[in-house]
């Protein structure tokens, strides 16, 4: 499989502060990669460098095997669809006019079967001026524009922000459909569940540094139930539990663990406890699993 995106020691420094710090990764053809991190972690800065909007302070980006330069980025863009959650469209145009403008820029027809399929999927308000549309409807226009030219690579920065849950689902279906066709997709998102849902690989970025490069299934597998019990006697956790905390405060023993196996086994274990002083059981979400990965990395760094 060919490499579509390759970065080497990619860095961007603003006023002496690194926004992205020596990020090296590659994305192969057909992969759907989620790019995840907190606000200010460096996701958008990385994407801006991938698109040739800003120049790396150090390191390099190669797209489709060719090193990207700012003056030459347009030639790569012929093969790339791009959308962001805050995409600025042209307010005086209608959605239809905007799509015609995009089609002419790419030299493709604006009434293709693909375009019609996208319109059917998102049901956007095509004949109203973009300035009058809600954020969600503007986002639909931007997403259609990103996919309508049948690009080999789609780069998306927080693409589903502003979409209602139904449209978010349509968007995820579209990503799956495009992935089946072999389109390479690189998307950043705040919605970890959607990243885990559609991506094959996840890159975690923290404080500008790439801290994890894992299969999406690994992040999904780390979710489960978060159990915390305070007992008067020391107890052993269930066999498959992943212990998060084990402490003794005075006469109390606190045990906290993530549990992903059979609920019946957990139920039986809870039933066997004696001298229970406190107990909480919560869903350990993908978000929490993500936090754990972040923290783990922080501990490793320390």
């Amino acid at each position, binding site marked *: 499989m060919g490499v579509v995106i390759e970065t080497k020691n990619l860095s961007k420094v603003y006023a002496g502060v690194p926004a992205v710090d020596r990020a090296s990764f590659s994305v192969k053809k057909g992969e759907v990669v989620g790019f995840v991190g907190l606000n200010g972690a460096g996701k958008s800065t990385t994407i801006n460098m991938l698109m040739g909007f800003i120049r790396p302070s150090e390191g390099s980006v190669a797209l489709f095997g060719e090193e990207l330069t700012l003056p030459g980025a347009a030639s790569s863009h012929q093969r790339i669809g791009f959308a962001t959650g805050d*995409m600025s469209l042209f307010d005086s145009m209608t959605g239809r006019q905007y799509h015609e403008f995009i089609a002419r*820029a790419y030299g493709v027809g604006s009434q293709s079967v693909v375009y019609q399929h996208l319109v059917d999927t998102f049901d956007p308000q095509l004949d109203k001026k973009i300035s009058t549309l809600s954020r969600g409807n503007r986002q639909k226009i931007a997403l259609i524009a990103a996919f309508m030219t049948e690009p080999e690579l789609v780069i998306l920065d927080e693409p589903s922000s502003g979409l209602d849950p139904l449209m978010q689902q349509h968007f995820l279906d579209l990503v799956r459909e495009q992935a089946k066709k072999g389109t390479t997709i690189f998307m950043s998102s705040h919605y970890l569940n959607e990243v885990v849902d559609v991506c094959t690989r996840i890159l975690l970025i923290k404080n500008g540094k790439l801290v994890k490069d894992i299969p999406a299934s690994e992040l999904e597998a780390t979710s489960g139930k978060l159990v915390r019990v305070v007992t008067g006697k020391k107890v052993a956790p269930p066999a498959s539990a992943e212990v998060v905390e084990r402490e003794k405060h005075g006469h109390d023993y606190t045990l906290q663990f993530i549990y992903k196996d059979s609920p019946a086994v957990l139920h039986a274990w809870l039933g066997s406890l004696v001298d229970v002083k406190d107990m909480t059981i919560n869903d350990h979400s993908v978000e929490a699993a993500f936090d754990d990965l972040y923290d783990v990395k922080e501990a490793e760094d320390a």
Partner: protein
Amino acid sequence: MLNLFVHTLREKRMFIFGWSLGLALLGYLMTAMFTSFGGGAIDELVESLPAGFEGLMGDLQDWKQLPGYIGSQVFDIRFPIFISILSILLAVGLTVGEEDKGQLRTLVSLPLSRMKIIIAKWTAIVLICLVATLATVGGILLALPTTGESLDLMVLVRLGLFTWLMVAALATVIFAVGLSTGKRSVTTTVGIVVTIGSFLLTTFAQSVAWLKDYEWLSFLHYFPAADIAKGTIVWENALFYAATIVVSLILVFVVFPRRDVKAL
């Protein structure tokens, strides 16, 4: 590139319409006012005004003939000021204005080279300046019958072309600063300093002796409209504006393709 050029004109259609209408009205009203200076009124005015006032009003002797009046009262002061404001708004809007709104990033994300973006936007600016100039000339032509005077069309052609060249040069300077820096404050400041500074320098150099030595710094120094109306064209002046355009375009061609484009 044609796509972006047409898109730019479409985005600015109300701007073009509004300014063209306003400038046509300016040309019409200023020309129609010529008749009010007949019957010796201008001689009385010449007698009553101090010589230093000519910096603001132009050579009052020029007012006695329609070509001189149009040269000094329409093209020498008012029209350049208005069309300079147009050029500042236009060039700032199409450069830092679009960048601040994130629209420049949207354009750069398309398979359009930055060179093509420069050419499409600059061509649109120059065309809009031409349309505004033609609208003013059109207003003057419409008002001619009300003056009862005839006017050699070449007077308007010379003045129109020179004005267009001047304003295209000014717009290109602001455009180049805007796309090269991406900073609204710098771009607007340059536009205002060049326009207002030139106006003040040219106006007061007529009556303030020490300013005369610096008047060549004024952008309007190279646009002696009254002389152009009389048929005197100094080609070095045209060359100055042409050179300004070329240098500004070289600057933007070198800098813009290599600089970071702001996100929202």
